[in-house]
Each structure stands twice: as structure tokens, then as C-alpha cells.
């Protein structure tokens, strides 16, 4: 809401400078985003339209001759409302104007000499938006006739405007008086309320018009007055200036007054041409099926049966509280006016405006559920101004259909101790009372507190806490003390999922991987690239995704990781080691989806940065497996890696991670990504090794496996261990795992480690050499060489029998 300071001063004295005022308003909840000095633009002066002719080559353009004081210019103008004799804002070459066609707010452009459809334009006639004083761009701004040609535009339009970012609870501040009232409460300077008294000279209003509310659930109150013999015409200068300063284009005195009162008090109003309302009877009803209405903007609107219309007995004449109908519009020939000031149902009004994509200043206010008291005040104020400005006779009395009378909450009880309970501080009784009274609240004090009347402009007040906030914001949050949270902290609750994720995140980061966080949504096609198993649960599809790139929630971290690896591979030459811990979304069709926590990571490119002594070798399966092993070791989970088929990964180069002690539960997968998957990611590396751990499964293992190392310290033997190396020849199909398993069957063997593999020169075709180090350790005696030799022989026999191993010569 842009509030001109000169307008504020009509209602309250402001002694402090504008920066201080902005600060105080901001602290009290009306955040001042900016103080603009508007209307001062170099090279823009008052011009006089001398003639208007059609553009020879463009139907919608006009050739306008403008006298701008120091010369006469011919300009091309596209505005429909340009007319001979108007005083307008004329911009000459070099003027910096707001760019009315830019989507970027605040964008400006410098006016250059240009040809429009073959005709050179020496300058421009400006709209409200081009002048930077408002949004209107439907026509040029027409200045008051009295404006002197050649006067710099700043002298006419210059104004300091406070731009307030209003919160949705304060529709009162959508009227200048509301902001002035806050200033009055902050400064203690009294508020000067606008005058609403007028003299009725016409007949009884009920003899002239009637109002029927057919749908009282949507129209809580409807007040109306009738003014006869008005003279419709341009508004006086002061009124035009007010509207221009807040960015509204003046239209005619009647419409301008309704707009003025809306911006002054926050009550939207509408004026109908009395003679265009059949039987002078207004019916407030829901639209009928397939009903249509041409609104003031000339567009035909198709209505639905939840939309409230203003109608006469034959037709609808307005969309209630949204926009008037073209068929009852005030024109220069109107002589009698029916003025409407009503209270419409906020939610319904908002729905109508949204459905028709018809945002209006009226809906901006009505949707905040205005109080019914405001409509009458607004009606009286506007009626008074019409009398003053457009002349005419006001019918005596007002029409006041008030079906919701008595249903609105009228009072709030504020206990004194409530203030202390909420704020933690007690105010002097007179501080509380003065503050609330300055905000316009009527109070009835008793020993325990106050009965507070809710004023007609504050629909946001309904509970004592609302009044506590009023008190606190005006006294200032700075003046409330600061205390440390005392009392009893709640009982600690275990959070195993969070703890596990943090632990795994830390291990992977310590293992040299970089954590990434990717978007949790993707596309169907994108995710299909990783070929998830067909039995994966259904996807969550978004009804209104931000873009088609994020149409569904992810069911895997694999795609995001491969995408990130690929993207980095184009710019990053060093090792790529990335992981993510996050949720995947699995829809089982019942209730909310499962949000399963996963940890997944990938290695690509070289294993290490270029180094003088460490060879730069490509990462492979064993890097990914190593990361998994680090996690498992940290968690003391003993797992085995078994061949598995998974379409994301290359066959024969992929392992399922299983925990034998937990019923062989599968907790994840590790492998090299299949080339037909990987090729779809446009990566500049040869291969990617990736792992995935299902944290829910890991947690299940941790919580349910009995044989799990509980972290209990185990005394180590002080007896010396011995080690022997075996160099074996086996078939290429024999795995290291088989050899180690056989060796470790003997309980004296405390570890068996494959430390060399060789298959080449000197090794027969189809065979490979495997070197294994066996560590022998007895818990209760020192082993002799003979004893070790005996065991070794047994192991060799087993190896020979089971996997055909021979000692290498």
C-alpha cells in the first residue's frame, strides 16, 4: 500500500522526520519498504493536446500535437483516452520513464527519438505507470485543466509516498485513515476522522429504490443511498491528485469518490446509474447457471452458481464486491446515482475473484472479511463527498439491509493477568488504557481487566491475545524484557533415524566424499533412466509442479546422484566422490506416502588428485564398496556381498549387501553402473561406481539383530600372533571370499587377508595366483611353528578339496 504523506497529514500531525516515522511504523508491524519521492522526472512537463488525428497506417494509434510551452511536438500515441484540449504529462527525448512493458519491477528506459509505423515521434504522452506513480497503463494520465503548460511535472505530481508492506490481518491499513490511526497511537497525536455528515434534501430513499438480499450468507449487510440530479464530470484537482498519488487514474467525479473513500477508509463502494436499474430494485443473489455478465472492463464473464451478483429484476448489473457491470456504469449523462456500500462474505468474494482471475482493489479488502460497521461509515462518507463535489440532492435516510445484524462479535474480554502471562511483563494500567484508546478501542475497566469494544475497522481482533499484541507493538517490542527460558525441559526421546543418518553422513564425509542435496522431485522419464525394479512402489505425482522438470517426487537417490556426477564431470577434473542422504517417496496408496531415508553415493574419475607419488588410477567398484565397508565398520555391522541382478548396475559387477546375523536382510546394493544406464546421463567419465544403503533396513538390523556387536569392549589377548603367507593357484572363477571363508573356518585363524592377485605370465590359462596372509592366534597359548604348520596343512587340504587350490611353486 502506497500512502502519500500529504494525505496522512490530513488525519494526523506528523512531527518526526520520515525516516523515523518509517522506523516506528515498521516496528509496530507496518513494514515500510521504501519512502519514495515520486513524480519528479526530468524532461517531463505539462503539455496541452492541440489536435488528434488518426495514424495513417495503424488503426489504434493516434497522431497527437502537443504544446509543451517551449515548443510544439507531434507524437504517436496509442492511448484510447487521448483527446483535444487535455492537459497531459509530456515526455521529451531523454526523459527516463518506467518501462511499462518490462516484467521486472522498477525497470526504466530512456526515451529516444523513434519512428512508430513510419511516423517519427518526438516525445511521448505518459501513463500513470510510465510516470512511476502507479500501475495503471490503460490510458494516458489526464491532468487538471488548470495545470500550466510547460510546468515541470514534479511540481504537479511530486509527493513523498510511504510504501508499506501490509500484513494480511490489517485491512484497516488498506485505508489511509488506518495508517494514520497507527501513527496517532505511536505518537499520541490525535486522529482527525473524516467528516461523514451530510444534509438530505431529497425524498425518502425508500420511495426511490429497494434492496433485497436473496442470499444473506454471502451478503452480510447492504447499505445504499440515492443521490439525484448529480453532475457527472471531472473531479476537482485535489481529488485527482489524491488518486494519482496512489496510482489510480481519475475517471469521473462519482467513480473517483468511490475510489477515494475505498483508499481513505478501506471500504469498497460501487455506484450504479439509477436509471439503468430496472424498477430501481437491487437484488443481491447467487448467479444462475450459465449466467453471463459483461464487466466494466468490457469482458464477458461466465459465472457459476457460487458467485454473488448484484442484479435488478431482469439481469445482473455487477459482480458483487469484485467489479461492476458495464450495463449500469456511471456515464457523463447519468443524473441519479445509487451508491452501494456493502459487506460481502470474504471467502466467497475471494473465490469469485480467483475463479475469474479478476484481482481488484475491492477484493483485496473484502477477502479479509471486513466488519459490517464499516459499510455504513463508508456509505455516509462517499454520499457526503458526492453531494459536495457533484452536487445533487441526497434522498433522506439510507437503505440498510442488515441480515447479519447482531451476529458479529462485539467485545473482547481482556484480563490484566493475561497480559502478564503472554508478555511476561506488567504495564501500568494507564499505559494499557491509553494505548488501546489511542488505537480507537473503547474500554470498560473493572478490577480484573477490561471489556473492549471491537471497532468497525478491525476485523482482526477477536481474542485477548490480539489486544495483547496491539499493546506490545505500540509500546514497542524493544520495551519488553528478555528472560531465559526457565521451567522443566521435556523428557528426552530417542531419535534413532536422525542419529543414524547423521552418523552415516559423518562417516562418508570423513571418508573423503562430498555431501550433496538434490531436488526431491524429478520427471518420470528422468527417473526411468535408472531402471528401478518393477515392484518399486508407485510415485507421488504433483498436481501443480513448479516446472515439468519436477513433476513427480523421487523414488530413488540414484538418478540425482548420477545426474550430479555427470554435470560435475564436465567441469571438474579431479576425483568425483559424492553422496546424499535423503528421503525417497513411496506411495502404497494408503495415507501419506512412506518417506524412506536412503544414503547413496558414487565415485567417478580418478581416485585421487594428481600427485607426485600416488598413481592416478580410475575409481571402480572397490571404491564404492570401500565406502560401504567404512559405514558398516562404524556401525559394527558384519555384512556379506553377494552377486545380484539390479538393472541400474552392470551384471557381474554388482553386489547385494546382506547381513547374515539379521536373517540375511538386504540393506543395500553396490556396483558399477550399467553402461546403458550411464550413457543416458551425458557424463565425461568412463564409469561410475555407486552404492545405496536403505537406512530403514540398516536401522532395523541395528535394532533387531541379537548377534550384533553391541560396542562392548572385548579383552584382547596378550599372547603373540604369528602370520604366514600362502601363495595359491586357483581357477579364475574362485573368489577371494571363498578362500577367506575356508581359511577362517579354523578358529585359530584370527584373520585372512588377500593381499595380491596375479594372472599373467607364468600362470596357466584359466587360473590365477592369489596371495593370502593368515594370522594365527590362540586365545590361551603361544603357538609353536609345528602347530601352525599343522593347521596350515589342514587349511591347504580344505582349499584344495573345495576350490581346487594348489600352492604356487
Amino acid at each position, binding site marked *: 500500500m502506497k500512502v502519500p504523506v500529504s494525505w496522512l497529514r490530513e488525519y494526523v500531525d506528523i512531527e518526526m522526520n520520515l525516516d523515523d516515522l518509517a522506523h516506528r511504523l515498521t516496528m509496530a508491524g507496518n513494514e515500510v519498504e521504501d519512502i519514495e519521492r515520486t513524480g519528479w522526472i526530468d524532461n517531463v512537463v505539462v503539455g496541452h493536446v492541440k489536435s488528434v488525428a488518426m495514424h495513417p497506417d495503424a488503426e489504434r494509434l493516434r497522431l497527437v500535437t502537443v504544446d509543451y510551452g517551449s515548443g510544439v511536438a507531434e507524437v504517436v500515441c496509442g492511448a484510447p483516452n487521448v483527446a483535444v484540449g487535455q492537459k497531459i504529462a509530456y515526455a521529451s527525448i531523454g526523459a527516463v520513464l518506467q518501462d511499462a512493458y518490462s516484467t521486472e519491477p522498477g525497470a526504466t528506459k530512456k526515451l529516444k527519438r523513434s519512428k512508430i509505423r513510419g511516423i517519427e515521434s518526438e516525445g511521448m504522452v505518459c501513463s500513470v505507470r510510465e510516470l512511476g506513480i502507479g500501475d495503471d497503463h490503460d490510458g494516458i494520465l489526464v491532468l487538471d485543466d488548470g495545470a500550466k503548460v510547460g510546468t515541470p511535472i514534479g511540481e504537479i505530481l511530486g509527493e513523498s509516498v510511504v510504501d508499506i508492506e501490509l500484513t494480511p490481518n490489517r485491512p484497516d491499513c488498506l485505508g489511509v485513515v488506518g495508517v494514520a490511526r497507527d501513527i496517532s497511537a505511536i505518537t499520541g497525536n490525535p486522529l482527525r476522522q473524516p467528516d461523514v455528515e451530510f444534509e438530505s434534501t431529497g425524498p425518502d430513499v425508500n420511495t426511490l429504490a429497494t434492496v433485497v438480499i436473496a442470499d444473506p450468507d454471502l451478503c452480510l449487510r447492504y447499505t445504499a443511498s440515492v443521490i439525484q440530479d448529480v453532475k457527472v464530470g471531472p473531479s476537482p484537482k485535489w481529488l485527482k491528485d489524491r488518486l494519482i498519488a496512489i496510482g489510480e487514474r481519475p475517471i469521473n467525479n462519482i467513480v473517483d469518490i468511490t475510489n477515494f473513500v475505498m483508499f481513505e477508509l478501506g471500504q469498497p463502494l460501487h455506484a450504479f446509474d439509477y436509471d439503468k436499474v430496472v424498477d430501481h430494485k437491487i437484488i443481491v443473489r447467487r448467479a444462475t447457471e450459465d449466467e453471463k455478465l459483461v464487466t466494466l472492463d468490457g469482458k464477458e464473464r461466465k459465472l457459476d452458481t457460487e458467485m454473488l451478483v448484484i442484479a435488478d429484476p431482469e439481469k445482473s448489473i455487477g459482480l458483487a464486491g469484485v467489479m461492476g457491470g458495464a450495463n449500469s456504469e456511471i456515464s457523463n449523462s447519468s443524473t441519479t446515482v445509487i451508491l452501494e456500500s456493502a459487506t460481502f462474505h470474504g471467502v466467497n468474494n475471494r473465490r469469485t475473484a480467483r475463479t475469474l482471475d479478476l484481482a481488484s482493489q475491492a477484493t483485496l479488502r473484502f477477502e479479509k472479511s471486513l466488519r459490517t460497521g464499516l459499510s455504513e461509515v463508508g456509505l455516509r462518507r462517499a454520499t457526503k463527498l458526492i453531494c459536495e463535489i457533484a452536487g445533487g440532492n441526497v434522498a433522506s435516510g439510507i437503505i440498510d439491509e442488515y441480515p447479519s445484524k447482531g451476529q458479529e462479535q462485539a467485545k473482547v474480554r481482556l484480563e490484566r493477568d493475561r497480559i502478564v502471562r503472554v508478555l*511476561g511483563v506488567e504495564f501500568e494500567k494507564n499505559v494499557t488504557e491509553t494505548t488501546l484508546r489511542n488505537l480507537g478501542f473503547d474500554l470498560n475497566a473493572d478490577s480484573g481487566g477490561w471489556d473492549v469494544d471491537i471497532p468497525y475497522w478491525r476485523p482482526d481482533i477477536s481474542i485477548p491475545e490480539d489486544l495483547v499484541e496491539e499493546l506490545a507493538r505500540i509500546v514497542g517490542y524493544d520495551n519488553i524484557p528478555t528472560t531465559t527460558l526457565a521451567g522443566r525441559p521435556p523428557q528426552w526421546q530417542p531419535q534413532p533415524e536422525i542419529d543414524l543418518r547423521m552418523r552415516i553422513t559423518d562417516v562418508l564425509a570423513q571418508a573423503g566424499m562430498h555431501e550433496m542435496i538434490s531436488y526431491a522431485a524429478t520427471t518420470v522419464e528422468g527417473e526411468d533412466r535408472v531402471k528401478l525394479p518393477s515392484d518399486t512402489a508407485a510415485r507421488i505425482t504433483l498436481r501443480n509442479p513448479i516446472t515439468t522438470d519436477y513433476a513427480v517426487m523421487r523414488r530413488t537417490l540414484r538418478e540425482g546422484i548420477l545426474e550430479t556426477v555427470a554435470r560435475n564431470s564436465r567441469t571438474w577434473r579431479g576425483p568425483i566422490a559424492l553422496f546424499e542422504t535423503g528421503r525417497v517417496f513411496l506411495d502404497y496408496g494408503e495415507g501419506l506416502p512412506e518417506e524412506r531415508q536412503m544414503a547413496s553415493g558414487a565415485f567417478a574419475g580418478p581416485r585421487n588428485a594428481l600427485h607426485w607419488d600416488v598413481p592416478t588410477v580410475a575409481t571402480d567398484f572397490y571404491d564404492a564398496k570401500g565406502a560401504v565397508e567404512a559405514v558398516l565398520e562404524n556401525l559394527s555391522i558384519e555384512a556379506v556381498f553377494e552377486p545380484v541382478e539390479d538393472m541400474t548396475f552392470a551384471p557381474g559387477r554388482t553386489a547385494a549387501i546382506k547381513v547374515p546375523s539379521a536373517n540375511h536382510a538386504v540393506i543395500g546394493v553396490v556396483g558399477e553402473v550399467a553402461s546403458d544406464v550411464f550413457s543416458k546421463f551425458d557424463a565425461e567419465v568412463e564409469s561410475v561406481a555407486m552404492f545405496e544403503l536403505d537406512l530403514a533396513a540398516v536401522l532395523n538390523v541395528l535394532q533387531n539383530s541379537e548377534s550384533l556387536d553391541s560396542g562392548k569392549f572385548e579383552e584382547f589377548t596378550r599372547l603373540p600372533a604369528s602370520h604366514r603367507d600362502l601363495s595359491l593357484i586357483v581357477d579364475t572363477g574362485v573368489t577371494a571370499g571363498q578362500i577367506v571363508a575356508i581359511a577362517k573356518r579354523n578358529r585359530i585363524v584370527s584373520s585372512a587377508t588377500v593381499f595380491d592377485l596375479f594372472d599373467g605370465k607364468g600362470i596357466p590359462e584359466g587360473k590365477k595366483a592369489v596371495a593370502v596372509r593368515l594370522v594365527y592366534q590362540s586365545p590361551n597359548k603361544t603357538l609353536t611353528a609345528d602347530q601352525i604348520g599343522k593347521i596350515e596343512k589342514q587349511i591347504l587340504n580344505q582349499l584344495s578339496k573345495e576350490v581346487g587350490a594348489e600352492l604356487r611353486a
Partner: protein
Amino acid sequence: MPKDQGVQATHVGESVVDMKFAAIADLDSAESDDQLESWRVRFLGRKGRLTSLLRGLGSLDIDERKVIGAEANKLRGELESLYEERTSKLKSTRAPVGSIDITLPGRKPALGGLHPSTQMIREITQAFNEMGFQTIEGPEVELEKYNFDMLNIPANHPARDQWDTIWVDSDTHNDVLLRTHTSPMQARTMEQNDPPIRVIVPGKCYRYESTDATHEWHFNQVEGLAVDDGITFADLKGTLYEFARRIFGPQRKVRFRCDFFPFVEPGVDMSIDWNGSWIEILGAGMVHPKVLENAGYDSTKYTGFAFGMGPERISMLRNEITDIRHFFSNDLRFLTQF
């Protein structure tokens, strides 16, 4: 005075210059400790050439003696420092047996790292953990009931405009959405637990909002909630002041102003002074009585405060990151800087 005094003086003066050139030339050719020592004895020793020269000054008149004496002493200083320089130079080029090139890079273990959002979330949650708030998490795909209704944000209410929402497409449900804030955990926590409550809730949130350098549709938030008998606005201020001191330093100016969120009353915006302008860090307030009642709490007995903040925004401020989109692009050139 002998008449050849001037000649002699000239001779002595030349000797200082000559000696300097001779000494420097000899020093530069000294390659071993022995040669260096011999040079030192010859030029700087007690019987060395410089000493002899100084001794010879006795025959000169007082003015000349002063001039030449000063030059000779200056030369001594110069030669001594040149000698030191040469000695250390020879030492450094002649490395001890078994020396290695200590300037070669070490075998540095690869350093991984946590995502900046994770780092900031941990820093924030830890600050509150230490004030008795426990970290919990909640669903990202959420029911309208928790995201809005129970938080006093009724359907079709203009207050909802503050949260543009991405909805889940479903044939059977139209009340499922991507949570627009972590605040639904206020309702869920109170629904499931009796007071006292002190929780801190980090997590991802989603908004139907077009993306630019300062706006993301996908971001993290950290929510806090404290509810008990006797919690006041003054406690809110004290708790959040303490938090701000930890995250932004004890000297940082902090401001609390009135703001509006439907689920609190009174509402608060906490801003910090950042290079002379106030930057909003978090929204907060006293839990709205309707929110307490909706969760089954007696609002006449219990009070509480809630707050919410964006870790990416704080990280952007502290680390001078100018584009929020960096956070989820996961470019290693970005990630490796934290």
C-alpha cells in the same frame, strides 16, 4: 707531517675499495667449509687484512683517519653479513645425507565435507539443543490439515497467500501437499505429546514460487516450538537473542518487530543488522491460542512460542553466497568451498 701523506692516504683509501672487491670475489669462490674458514681468517681474522688496514690508520691525520676508519668499519659489517649469507647458502645447497624434498606435497587423505545446508542446520539445531530443544523431523508430503488448518490458516483465507502451495495429484485425496513450511510439526508434536514441549525441527519445504537468485521452490527450514505453563514473550526474546548471539556473534545488533503469521499472536520478525540494513532472519511469535486448542491443549493454562528460519538464507548471508540456486546444483566448485 711527512709530505707524502696525501699519497699514503689515497693508497689507504684505495685499499678499502680494493679489499672489498677482492674479499667479495674470494668469498663467491669459496665452496667448502674449509675455504670459508680460510677466507674468514684472511679478511676478518685478528691478523687478517681488514685488521691490518685499521691498524695502519694510525699514521694518518685525524680527519682522514675518521673517514677511512668509518669506511673500513662499514666494510667489516658488510663482509660479516656476506660471510653469514654465504655460509647459510652453502649449508642449504649441501643437504645432509638422507635429506628429502620437504616441499613436495604430502599424501593428504581426501577431505570430504558436509553440504553447507547441513552444516548450517547442525549449527542452528545444536544451539537450540543446548537450550533443551530436541531435534525431531516430520513428513515432507503432508496433509492440508497439519500444514494449514490446525495452524489457523483456513481454506480460502487470504492468509494462505503467504504460502503458495504445490499439491499432490491424487484421485482419492485432494488434501495432500508438499509442506510449505516446517510448522506442521507444531501441530503434530502437540497432538502427540503433552507439555512441556521443546523441539527444533529441520527439514525440506516446498513452495510454488518461481526461482531466481533469492528464491527457491525447494529449500530447508528450521522450526522451533516451546510450550509449557508460564512461557512468555520475554522468554521468546531471550531464547532467540541467545541464538542470534551464537550464530551471528555477540556484537551483532538484533531487532524484534511486530509481524503477522496466522499461527502466532503476537507475531514477531527478528532481524539482524547486516552492514547497516536490517535483514529478517526468522519469523516467530507466541503460539496462537487456536493452534493450542486445535492440538487439544488448554490455551488458558499453556502458552508457548514458535519460530522458523531458513538455513540457506543464513548461510547466504554469512558466506556471501549471492545465488540460492547454488545450494541444490551440487557443483563441486561450490561444495568444496565449505
